[in-house]
């Protein structure tokens, strides 16, 4: 069974705040696939996850590194950007991070399809006019269903 939720974030801060909310439900081995065009806010969302996990390091897109690791007491965060792995050798040991001891956020998951497990949280970001974003959450992980009842857009002054 799949569960889906669509929310509209009116600005970057609200996207980050949503990610902070999501981070509270993260656990070792969770895979979060982020989809959306360039500039849709995938890396921004991961910044929010990192903030929620109390990671102090600055999160930048791993477009060239492919993988960045944030080792952290609460939960390790692995950030993969598979964009540059299209039509190349993908055998670089990514499964040790995807099926690992932390939460793994993957941008452009379609380029490493064979490594994506069957149970994931998918977050689709879509740019709307006025700098807002439509964010759609989908999952088949039952223990995340409760998160879908609790995610809300909190106003900036909340």
């Amino acid at each position, binding site marked *: 069974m799949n569960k889906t939720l669509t929310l509209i974030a009116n600005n970057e801060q609200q996207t980050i705040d949503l990610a902070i909310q999501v981070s509270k439900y993260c656990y070792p081995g969770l895979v979060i696939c982020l989809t959306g065009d360039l500039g849709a806010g995938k890396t921004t969302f991961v910044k929010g996850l990192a903030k929620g996990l109390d990671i102090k390091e600055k999160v930048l897109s791993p477009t060239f590194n492919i993988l960045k690791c944030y080792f952290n007491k609460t939960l390790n965060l692995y950030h993969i950007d598979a964009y540059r792995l299209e039509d190349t050798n993908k055998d*670089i040991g990514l499964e040790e991070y995807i099926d690992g001891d932390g939460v793994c956020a993957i941008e452009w998951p379609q380029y490493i399809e064979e490594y994506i497990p069957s149970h994931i949280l998918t977050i689709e970001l879509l740019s709307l006019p006025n700098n807002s974003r439509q964010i759609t959450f989908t999952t088949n992980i039952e223990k995340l269903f409760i998160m879908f009842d609790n995610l809300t857009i909190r106003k900036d002054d909340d």
Partner: protein
Amino acid sequence: MYDLILDSSDKELLVAVAKDETIVDKIEYEAWQKQSELMVQELDNLFKRNNINKLDISSILLTIGPGSYTGIRIALTIAKVIAYSLNIKIYPFSSLQILQFEKKPSICLINARSCRSYIGVYDGNNTILKDQVMKNEDVLEYIKNHKEYVICGDCGYLNLEGYKNDKCLNMLALKSFIKPTDSFHVKPIYLKD
């Protein structure tokens, strides 16, 4: 002259020195994803606390996989640099074979992730099943069909208790069966390619 032993093919970091088939000293602990930062430092500690001159190393015993993609390459890179600079040989070992229980046929296992295992079945120097990647469900089936074999390795991911042998002693015991190779011809074994 000393044998240098290096392994970072899975979660552990292992550096050791041996002389005349006997372990002089070793450092071994779990260091998942930290081996690249620690291995050279630990080597230095090992040499210093035993007053070993690096020039007295005459060969390197090294695991070349299968196992962690990055892990294998850490010990391998360090071994190659040392072997090249000292002009000595490397003895490449299967990281599965050295997990075996020396007295019985052993099913040696390493977690390959994505519901798969690296498996190799050994009876001393005899290979019963050569190193390969296998689905965990097939591994469990294989174990069920070979109850007389000992399960070896860190098998918590299969909810099994694996026998944990001394990797150093296994490497020393198997050394005479391994063909030494020069530093340019040692390659990592990564069975998923």
